């Protein structure tokens, strides 16, 4: 029996009179890819922002490895092992790869006000982090600006996976990528899964969801409509659940 890495119970979030989340409960298992699908405005992004600490949920609880946790900002969420790979923002172009990997987690040496960056250690560790997920980049000393879209996403994913994290949230990780690069990122996701991470994947691409996911949650108008194993469904079924043409009954 695999361990439930993250569990959300009855999460609610409103913006003024708009109910973005009307009591959402999902869970994701370690070593699995859990996909969240739904139309625009279904509440997927709001949900992951509650999980990653960007939003503070109005109600409901989040459990990590069975323990109820509470956080109000991304940093606290990160301290519980929840990392997010964003669709657009993430890496800072003017900084090098190793600087990005260690951004706001820089290693220092020395004491007191004379704390200086331990650049060599960070470069060495950066190389390890990339190698650990079989990502090949010419030099960690290169500026991110010169990297291709796929390489950037790979670096961003390595950053999310490389910090003893338990849950990695990916919001449309391949939306801006070409076919070849998408394949590479998908490989990367499989390797992360093999390392026992729980991956929460948001994607509009049903083929991708069916290829990668072990479990799928369908959201519609701020609620979870259905939850199923990926091998029990197909694209048409998903579409009918998302549009509301079919009802999934009680989510499981």
């Amino acid at each position, binding site marked *: 029996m695999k361990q439930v890495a993250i569990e959300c119970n009855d999460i609610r979030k409103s913006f003024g009179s708009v109910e973005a989340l009307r009591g959402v409960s999902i869970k994701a298992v370690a070593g699995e890819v859990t996909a969240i699908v739904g139309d625009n405005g279904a509440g997927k992004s709001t949900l992951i922002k509650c999980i990653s600490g960007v939003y503070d949920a109005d109600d409901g609880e989040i459990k990590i490895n069975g323990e109820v946790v509470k956080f109000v900002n991304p940093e606290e969420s990160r301290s519980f092992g929840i990392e997010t790979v964003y669709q657009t923002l993430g*890496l800072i*172009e003017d900084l090098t790869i190793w600087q990005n990997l260690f951004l*706001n987690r820089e290693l220092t040496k020395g004491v007191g006000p004379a704390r200086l960056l331990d650049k060599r250690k960070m470069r060495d560790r950066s190389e390890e982090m990339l190698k650990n997920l079989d990502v090949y980049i010419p030099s960690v000393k290169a500026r991110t600006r010169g990297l291709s879209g796929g390489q950037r996403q790979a670096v961003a994913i390595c950053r999310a996976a490389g910090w003893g994290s338990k849950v990695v949230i990916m919001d449309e990780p391949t939306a801006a990528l070409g076919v070849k690069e998408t394949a590479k990122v998908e490989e990367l996701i499989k390797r992360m899964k093999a390392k026992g991470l729980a991956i929460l994947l948001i994607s509009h691409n049903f083929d991708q969801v069916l290829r990668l996911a072990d479990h799928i949650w369908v959201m519609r108008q701020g609620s979870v409509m259905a939850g199923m194993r990926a091998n029990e469904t197909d694209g048409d079924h998903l579409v009918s659940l998302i549009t509301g043409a079919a009802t999934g009954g009680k989510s499981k």
Partner: protein
Amino acid sequence: MSVNRNNETASAEAEAVSKSAKSRIQETFRDPFFWSKWLVVVAFLLIVLVFGLLSPEAFLTTYNLNNILVASAIPAIIVVGQTFTVATAGIDLSVSSIMTFGAVCFGLAFTNGWPLYQCIIFSTLAGFVCGIANGLIIAKREVNDFIVTLGMLSVAAGAALVLSDGKPRQIIDERLANVAINEFTHIPYLMFIAFAIVLVAHFVLFHTRFGTHLLAVGGDPDAARAMGISIVKIKVLVYAISGSLAGFAAVLTVSRIGAAEPAANTSILLNSVAAVVLGGVSLFGGRATIFGPFVATLLLQALSNGLTILGVASYYQYIAVGVVVIISASLVRTSNK
């Protein structure tokens, strides 16, 4: 740029793995940042060479080069603060007024019989307070940095006039005068002080967490915030540093003039922004060096010094400095595309 990136993606990875040392050097030369970094050094040497050839017996003397160093020291300190604000994609237009305000505060403390070190701390603190005010309004209230520091320019200048009643105060102190006059191995004390600040600033920018976070905030504030970096903290600190350096530079001005004057020193503001641009710091933030603007400061002083020696009236020197700045900015602009 983004169009290029997509075309390159397919072959980039395979290519990248087998990158030789030679191609890496080629890449360095193609990197516009590399050129904007070294452009200023080349330009500086060129200017020294030209004036040296035009007027070898007047320009290239120890006495004159020493003059250039003395004149560069105070601007060099202001430029460090300006570099920090520009690196966060901001600007500090109030540096010259803060300097005046600091000088007046120094004068007040001094005539009240405070010990010298307390006067120095007081002047620096006065600048620090102005800088903190700038930073808090810019970062917390999210008001445009240009407007806030422009307002502070007026506030600090006015406060200096009010506190001093518009009159300069003579400051007679042997130790202060010594700092301004003396030199060691032909290098003036003032320059040693400036260079020490430059060195510390370099270490802060490139060898501390604060420096990395500063560049991150300047390069991409949203991405920096997503990684948990406090933009407010960084911005407040950056303007506080700029203000404090202006307050400290005021002490050196007092030591040079021998008086605390409420008169505004506007050319130092223009020069500081000019040196930052010339020194290859991106006005969009995220990319900076400390030594580039430092060399640019020397360059600007050498330029006006050389023109003076050639007998060019100071009116024309303003034009020359302005033209150099605009040309260098447009050079950097095109090479960044």
